[in-house]
């Protein structure tokens, strides 16, 4: 058996076909994101590091290329390479807190 999965090299689709399948899904998610940012505007206090990370990712949406998801996930990732001594929580927040 060859080492290729049967979905790779996918049938090429037109942009209209992709939009027909997924535009409404993307539309409501974009509106939800806009509503979230509006909600933040009305709230008080300093900017949360997670929101700072989200704002830092927004320009990546407008760049050309086909790896936006990977770029955003890399942006939000802990860049260090060695184990930490001890964790102060079991949870992850979604954005590396040191992201500027």
């Amino acid at each position: 058996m060859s080492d290729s999965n049967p979905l790779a090299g996918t049938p090429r689709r037109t942009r209209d076909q992709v939009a027909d399948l997924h535009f409404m899904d993307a539309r409501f998610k974009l509106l939800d994101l806009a509503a979230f940012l509006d909600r933040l505007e009305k709230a008080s206090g300093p900017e949360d590091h997670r929101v700072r990370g989200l704002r830092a990712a927004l320009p990546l949406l407008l760049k050309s290329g086909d790896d936006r998801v990977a770029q955003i996930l890399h942006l939000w990732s802990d860049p260090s390479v060695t184990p930490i001594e001890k964790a102060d929580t079991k949870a992850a927040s979604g954005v590396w807190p040191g992201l500027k």
Partner: protein
Amino acid sequence: MRYIEPHGHMVSRTTDDYQAMALAGCAAICEPAFWAGFDRKTADGFYDYFCQLTQHEPKRAAKYGLPHYCWLCINPKESEDMKLADDVLALIPEFMKAKTVLGIGEIGLNKNTRNEMLILEKHVELAVKYDQLILVHTPHLEDKRKGTRLIMDVIKAAGKVKPERVIIDHVEEHTIGEVLDQGFWAGITLYPESKATPVRAVDMLENFASQRVWLNSACDWGHSDPLAVPKAMQEMRRRGHSAAAIDRLVYGNPVRFLSQSPNFKDPQALR
């Protein structure tokens, strides 16, 4: 259409979920040991959990016509307590004698700490000693990329583990390439919010040519969906992929990986 759920925490799910999965075409379920949502205090708690995985849960699944398999370990979230972890590791060989145990898992890292790394190394040694398959949990969110790389380094440093006998689960767009490039299998976990959605999973499948990939729901006690794999199948159909191609991904691939364990039986062959 048939599929295999290669990663579902069924002890956390209801019988309604078993029924829905069976109706959706599920042919077998594999359940890695994991965190209960709280830290267990004693090895006795894990002894009972391993009894549940190897004895009770297969009977519950059988009522819906579903073969049930499991993986054994202490998960990384409870690895900070080294004494507890060592005591639990000592229990595992006895439970490996059960006919439904597929290997060691889901081991890995959570916050990428030194103690988590030490216990991961001990799990890998155990897998090597008993010639077991390995199922790896990679960390969540911002800890995933670093943790995935550390885990692969530990497995490679062990020296005796064939990468094709290891599945590294919960890959996303920024980790799947490295995992496949190093010869491991990659698991894409379908979650409503974290990890990958069915739509993103199908994008990844279209972008990465390797056949060493499976899809799973990792349904558990949190926000998760036991029907996530059939929903990804529906997305593949919407995009025009053939029934044969979908079958190879959601049934054939898990069977190919899991059949490396002598305990796994192709459900089709059982009928």
